[in-house]
């Protein structure tokens, strides 16, 4: 009996814990942007100060941990009210499962504040499910001093052969050409994605998705072959397969390698994670688009990147939506735009951007002839991760391009 009483007590205790926080409305937001975190926490503070009875808590979680956690996270009663999202297939899976709120009723308000293209990424079947906050672009980020040391010209990198030449020359000069966080896998899929985009052109993914066996088509195999060609030069730093993303930022910041094909967020990241906490200063950083491929259908102005933003989860209180509205306002986004942490999706924030690098990226995105979302997000959770696996395996010489394409196809069929 004692036991029964005890376990009864236990359940009662658990329940009381769950309902104890009902006094104030608490809104929890969870995201993965390490450098944006302090700015976003500040936005929440400002909001809390002017909104009595509401407490917004912003939490940061490491990227990989967040992606692994998300499926279980959403199913908990205590799920965060506002979650970070990359839109695309992963978001669609979350919507289909019924964990995301439809906010179409507020679309007009958001339309006034956010650029139409990024906001459109959060629409599915004519309904709006989230808001875009930051735009990002994947591009070649290089260390000018090391480039000079290696004696190479960035203009050479416009073509694939020129790019490979630069890698060879750099290596010959005793400088590591590329920094890669291979342990997290997704950094390598940027190479595969860009190759695919340059080879296959804007409709490469839709064609693959709608054709039987479409992921085994030529562009997918060829992208793998080109990646293999690149990796054969051994351009990455020693131990790249075991290096995670954040330490790879640190290695770039410590001057251990000349270049990275990375998101613009890599720039403040390498400064934060360098051993001296300073890294390579902005004026020593140069940017270049991913090279063009001969005979490919894509253009050099096509960009790969993200349209990151936030989704409102099921059962989130109305206060959460209200906070999101404030969050995406130009007023709230001003500080991070000024600091150059990312390119905001909010209209009118370009005026705040002081950092010339960020301004350059903002320009590239707005001039983009085709902005493709990250493949590992766009294709959904199970297929996306296979693309990452395949990219690393091909680059490590562990898989043939044909096998790689086959594996992506299998994952798509078994989705």
């Amino acid at each position: 009996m004692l036991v029964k009483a005890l376990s009864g007590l236990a359940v009662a205790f658990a329940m009381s814990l769950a309902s104890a926080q009902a006094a104030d409305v608490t809104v929890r937001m969870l995201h993965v942007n390490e450098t944006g975190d302090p700015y976003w926490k500040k936005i929440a503070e400002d909001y809390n100060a002017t909104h009595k009875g509401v407490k917004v808590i912003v939490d940061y979680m490491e990227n990989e941990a967040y992606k692994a956690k998300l499926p279980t996270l959403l199913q908990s009663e205590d799920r965060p009210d506002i979650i970070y999202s990359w839109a695309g297939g992963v978001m669609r899976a979350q919507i289909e499962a019924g964990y995301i709120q439809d906010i179409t009723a507020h679309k007009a308000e958001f339309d006034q504040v956010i650029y139409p293209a990024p906001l459109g990424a959060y629409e599915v079947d004519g309904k709006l499910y989230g808001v875009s906050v930051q735009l990002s672009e994947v591009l070649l980020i290089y260390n000018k001093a090391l480039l000079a040391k290696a004696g190479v010209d960035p203009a050479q990198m416009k073509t694939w052969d020129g790019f490979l030449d630069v890698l060879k020359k750099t290596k010959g000069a005793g400088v590591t050409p590329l920094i890669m966080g291979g342990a997290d896998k997704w950094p390598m899929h940027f190479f595969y994605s860009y190759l695919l985009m340059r080879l296959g052109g804007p409709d490469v993914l839709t064609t693959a998705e709608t054709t039987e066996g479409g992921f085994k088509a030529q562009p997918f195999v060829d992208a793998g072959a080109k990646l293999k060609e690149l990796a054969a030069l051994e351009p990455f730093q020693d131990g790249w397969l075991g290096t995670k993303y954040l330490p790879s930022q640190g290695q770039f910041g410590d001057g251990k390698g000349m270049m990275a094909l990375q998101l613009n967020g890599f720039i403040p990241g390498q400064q934060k994670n360098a051993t001296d906490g300073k890294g390579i200063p902005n004026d020593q950083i140069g940017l270049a688009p991913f090279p063009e491929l001969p005979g490919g259908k894509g253009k050099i102005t096509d960009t790969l990147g993200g349209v990151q933003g936030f989704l409102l989860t099921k059962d989130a209180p109305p206060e959460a939506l209200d906070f999101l509205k404030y969050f995406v306002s130009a007023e709230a986004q001003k500080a991070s735009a000024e600091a150059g942490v990312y390119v905001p999706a909010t209209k009118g924030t370009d005026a705040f951007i002081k950092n010339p690098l960020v301004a350059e990226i903002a320009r590239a995105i707005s001039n983009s002839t085709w902005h493709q979302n990250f493949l590992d997000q766009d294709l959904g959770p199970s297929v996306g991760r296979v693309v990452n696996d395949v990219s690393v395996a091909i680059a490590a010489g562990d898989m043939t391009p044909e096998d790689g394409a086959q594996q992506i196809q299998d994952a798509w069929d078994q989705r």
Partner: protein
Amino acid sequence: MADTTAPPQSQASYVRSGGLTALIFLPPALTLFTVFVILPIGEAGWYGFYNWNGLAALDNFVGLENYRQLLANKTFHQAFINNLLIIAVSLAVQLPLALGMAVLLADRLIGSTAFRMLFFLPYILADVAAGLIWRFMFDGDYGLISQTWQALGGDPLYILADRHWAYAAVLTVIVWKYFGFHMMLYIAGLQNIDRNLYEAASIDGASPWQRFRFITLPGLKPMIKLSVFFSLLGSLQFFDMIVSLTGGGPLNSSHTMVSFLYYFGIGRMRIGFGSAVGVLLFILCATVAFGYKRWLMRDDND
């Protein structure tokens, strides 16, 4: 039940009141055990027939498709081999080491207790912590192993980034962490061996090696079996250290079956597929347990 004025109860009424007491004593354990142990194992069998992401309705019945995919999956093959490697290393390295240390420490010689405790210490650390400690040791830039190698004139060693060596690193840590536990088993076993045998043998002029070979080793047989059994079971549930030491990488070369289940089942929202892995693990565990029982009984009959 305990009416003090009643005459002594008959045997039959003991049995009846025993049944009543059991009705009070058993249900809590039975309920918890059934709800959280037996039902989930059964449900794993059920989910294993579906392609299910754990969220939507459970309606996409795929029969044995999950199992077919699993058995064709190269990463799973590697994970299975890795589990076998744990067993191999347990038998080839850990067992002799633990046995050797046990023999050296079974008697009350100077420092025996201190050494025993020292060797046992890694066993009580969480696998996650042990994995992180060794992630540091093996780190190519900061770790002691790479630093030692460089001090000897070599290039930095990125052991955890090398698909041929990363899993060897995991195996090293397993021996480091678990040999002390097996040593304790052997020490316990040694204390069961009749001392008179040793004295008789030494009077007969047996060398220390002969005494080890003909008294110690046969006397430890049950403990050796037990130790092997623990290595088998430990291998089948090995997970935490993979997460903190290698994350299954590089190139998915260092997964075990459980880490495969976690990363490819939960991490990719494929509950049905992951459940199939669980079912396979369950069958292996049952086989090991059953085999061990047979093995024990066979020798008892010798």
